[in-house]
Structure formats: C-alpha cells, structure tokens
C-alpha cells in the first residue's frame, strides 16, 4: 500500500513539474478553456435571467378575474364562492364591486381620471370576483368548472400569455443547453489538440518511460494532472472575468432596463456560486479528459 501511495505522490509531483515545464503549451490550453467558459458564462446568464423573468411573471399573473352579469342572483354568487373556496390552490377570493373597480381605474389613470367622471351614475364596469392562486397552473381546472356556472359573463385570466412565455423560456433553455453542449464538445476538441502537441513533443519521453517499465497509468497520470491544473486555472480566470464583467454590466444597465421592461437581470452575487461550481467542474473535466484522449495513441509501444 505504501508503494502505491509513493507512486501516487510521484505522479502528482510530476504533474506539477510538467505543468511548469510546459507552461508555453499551458497558456494555449488555459486561454482556450477560459474563452470557451466565458462564452458559456454569457449563455448561462442569459438563461438564468430569462428563467428569473418567467418565474417573476408567473407570480404576477397568478389571479383569475370573474366578471359577473348585473342581474346575477345571490344564490348564483354563493354557488360561485363555494365552488372556488373548495378548490385546491386557491389562496383567496375577493368580491370587487362596480364602484371599487371604478376607483381602481381612477387611481391608475391618475391625472386623466377626470375623464371617468360621471360614470358613477351608470357604471358600465361589471361586478367581479378576484381569485388569488398559489400558482397559475391551478387555473385551468377552476376555469373549466366556472364556465359551467350561470351568472358569469366572462372569466379572465392570463394562462395563454403565461403558456407562451413558458414555451419561449423552454426554447431558450433547450437552445442554451444545446449551445453549452456544443461548446463543451468544441473545447474538448481544442484542448485535446493542444495537449496532443505537448504529448507529441514528449513522445520520446513516453517511449523511454515504457522501456524502463512504467505502467500506462504511471505515464498517463502526470499528463492528466497537468491537464486538470490547466483546466482549473482556465476556470478561475473565466470565473473572475465573467463575475466582474457581468457585475459591471449589471450595475451600469440594471436600473434602466428595469424601468423600461420591468424585468430584473439576475444578481451577480447569486450566480457566483453557480458559475464557480459549473466552471470548475467543466474546466477541470475538459482538461483531464482532453489529456487522456490525446494520450491514448502514444501508449502502444
């Protein structure tokens, strides 16, 4: 067992040594890894922002409004209230009278509210119920039941908008995944090529090691560690650039974008952990796998 431990130590030592001795090649590997990860970072932030937007929108559109005929009977109203109260996912049901509806309009119109004056006598707005839901996904079921009730003029909810938004967000997510997968593929190719150059340059060294009786694992080990270290450095660089770069962009643009579209970009701090984990894993993985893939061909001496 101690022999194995010593072998392991040797391999690690040689990995670090190799990294230093091949730093020229290393810079090439590191820059291609960080370039790929930076693009990945942008795609990731885009996906996260859109995700946040969808979640945010969903929470804003989690209500159903039921407009009632003026001649609705008390029995019919009680029936509606009972039905809704008995449903899953309903947080509250509120009665909004004609007058309340008009007040809300007035409030919203602000300075132009004088245009609404005089409507009090013959208010054209209907009485309504506003149902608060836990989640818009409960809406379909409730709406279907409400359609069977009498005294209801119209049921208004934003399911369609939400559906479209969700669909759009899904496309973005799937597209993002495809782009990320493609990027990882490309970067493995680039890195394995870069490392292949290092390995080719050290072909002689490898064949000598084999003649002396080194096992494949012992020869591969240092290269894999080298690749892993290059990947980690590349990851650190890109984490730094993406985090600070996005932070700067966020600060300079967030206020304005929020005002115009009422959407918020993801906070730079919330993505730091995510990108740290993702980048480190991908960077180290690409580096190690890249070395391993490019080594294979040289080991059959």
């Amino acid at each position, binding site marked *: 067992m*101690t*022999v*194995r*431990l*010593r*072998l392991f130590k*040797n391999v690690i030592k040689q990995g670090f040594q190799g990294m230093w*001795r091949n730093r020229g090649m290393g810079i090439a590997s590191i820059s291609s890894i960080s370039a790929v990860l930076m693009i990945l970072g942008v795609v990731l932030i885009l996906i996260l922002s859109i995700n946040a937007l969808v979640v945010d929108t969903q929470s804003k559109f989690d209500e159903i409004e039921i407009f009632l005929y003026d001649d609705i009977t008390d029995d019919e109203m009680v029936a509606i209230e009972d039905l809704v109260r008995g449903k899953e996912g309903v947080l509250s049901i509120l009665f909004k009278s004609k007058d309340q509806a008009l007040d809300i309009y007035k409030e919203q119109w602000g300075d132009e509210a004088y245009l609404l004056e005089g409507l009090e006598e013959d208010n054209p707005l209907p009485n309504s119920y506003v149902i608060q839901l836990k989640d818009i996904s409960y809406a379909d079921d409730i709406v279907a039941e409400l359609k069977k009730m009498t005294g209801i003029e119209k049921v208004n909810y934003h399911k369609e908008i939400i559906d479209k938004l969700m669909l759009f967000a899904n496309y973005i997510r799937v597209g993002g995944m495809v782009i990320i997968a493609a990027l990882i593929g490309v970067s493995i190719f680039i890195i394995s090529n870069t490392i292949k150059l290092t390995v080719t340059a050290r072909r*002689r*060294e490898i*064949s*000598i*090691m*084999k*003649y*002396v*009786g*080194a*096992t*494949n694992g*012992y020869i591969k080990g240092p290269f894999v560690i080298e690749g892993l270290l290059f990947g980690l450095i590349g990851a650190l660089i890109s984490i730094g650039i993406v985090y600070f770069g996005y932070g700067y962009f966020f600060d300079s643009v967030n206020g304005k974008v929020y005002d115009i579209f009422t959407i918020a970009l993801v906070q730079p701090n919330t993505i730091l952990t995510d990108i740290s984990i993702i980048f480190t894993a991908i960077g180290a993985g690409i580096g190690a796998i890249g070395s391993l893939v490019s080594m294979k061909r040289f080991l059959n*001496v």
Partner: protein
Amino acid sequence: MIKLVNVSKVYDNGVKALKNVNLEIKKGEFVFLVGSSGAGKSTLLKLLLKEEEPTEGSIYLNGMDITRVRNRRIPNIRRNIGVVFQDFRLLHNKTVYENVAFAMEILGTHPREIRRRVPMVLSMVDLSRKASYFPDQLSGGENQRVSIARAIVNNPPVLIADEPTGNLDPDTAWEIMKLLNDINSRGTTILMATHAKDIVDHMQKRVITIEDGILVRDIEKGGYDREITTV
C-alpha cells in the same frame, strides 16, 4: 534465464524476420548476438522486450512464459530486464541522478532506498561527480554509462544491450565493455547485439549468429565469425 522454443516472427507486411529459432541462455551468461543488419537481431530483442509478439513458438524469461501476456503485464516483464540502447534514450529534462532515480521511482521504491542506491550505481559507472549534469552536457560514453546505470539500478536478472557501442569511439567502447563485463561478473545475464567485430573477437564469450532470420551459429567462447575463431 531466457529460452526461445521454435520462435518465428512474420511481420504484417509479410517479412519473415525470424524462422524457427531455438535458443537457451543460462543465468549469468554473457552472450553476443551478431549478424548483418536486417538479419533479425532487433526482432529477437523486441520479442524479449514484448515490443512485438511472436507469430509462433514460445518465449520464457526467468522461468515465466511471456509468449502471450496482457498489455497490463508488460511493464512487469520489462522491470525484469535492463535495457541499453545505441542512442542511450535518456530523459533530456532530467539530470543524470534523476534519470537513474526515475527507474526506481516508477516502482514506488522508498526514497531512502533511492538515495542509497542511485549514488552507489553512479559510482559503479564512475559518474558520481556528474550526478547533477544533464545528458546534453555529457559525452557519448558518459551518456551510455548513465543508461547502463539506469538499466541495472533495479538489479534486473537480465540486461539487454542493443549495439551499446555503436555510437562510440573505440576507446570509449572498451570502457563500456569493461563495465558490462563487470556487471556480468556480478551475476547479471547479458545479451548484447552488436556489429563490433573486434569486441566480439576479444571478449571470447558465447556468440550467436543470426542470418536471414535463422540462427546459423552458436559458439562458446567464439569470435565474430568462424574464420576468425579458427585463427
């Protein structure tokens, strides 16, 4: 120590490098392997080093059948054989000391044992003073002595030398031969392929001659070829 039974080797391109070779080398022997270029000397050495597989026949090393072994086991076989090449094959980015130590490191030898053994072997090949030099800073003879030190540092029972004096001037070549002879007298079996007629004639060891893949002569205390032995 080394035994070949009916060994033939046909390369993929149809070249018949060895034809039905039978050979036995006993423990502690010093054997020259001679023959013109392309006669099959290198193929024979490659078979012993498991660089090539024989097409037919069996090969035994140290009592072990190494005719067909899994790739995984090849390193273990090579650890029983020290190898010296004409072109030295040293690691250029490592010092003399590191080159020799490397052969021990890959076995996971204890650092204390490495620190004890490497200087010992280096003093044996008379390179103690140059331990911290890089191969490029040394002469050909010195490089070959480093590679011999590396080959014997793990005390292998067999040492294979493929034209170890091929790149050296006559005086240096004799130094190397003396060194190999010393190693042999300590009990290591040596198989040396060579073209150096004068060395073979002078050493008076067992000589095996291969021509066109056939073992044509096997003489105890022989010379490079028959004419000279009879003189």
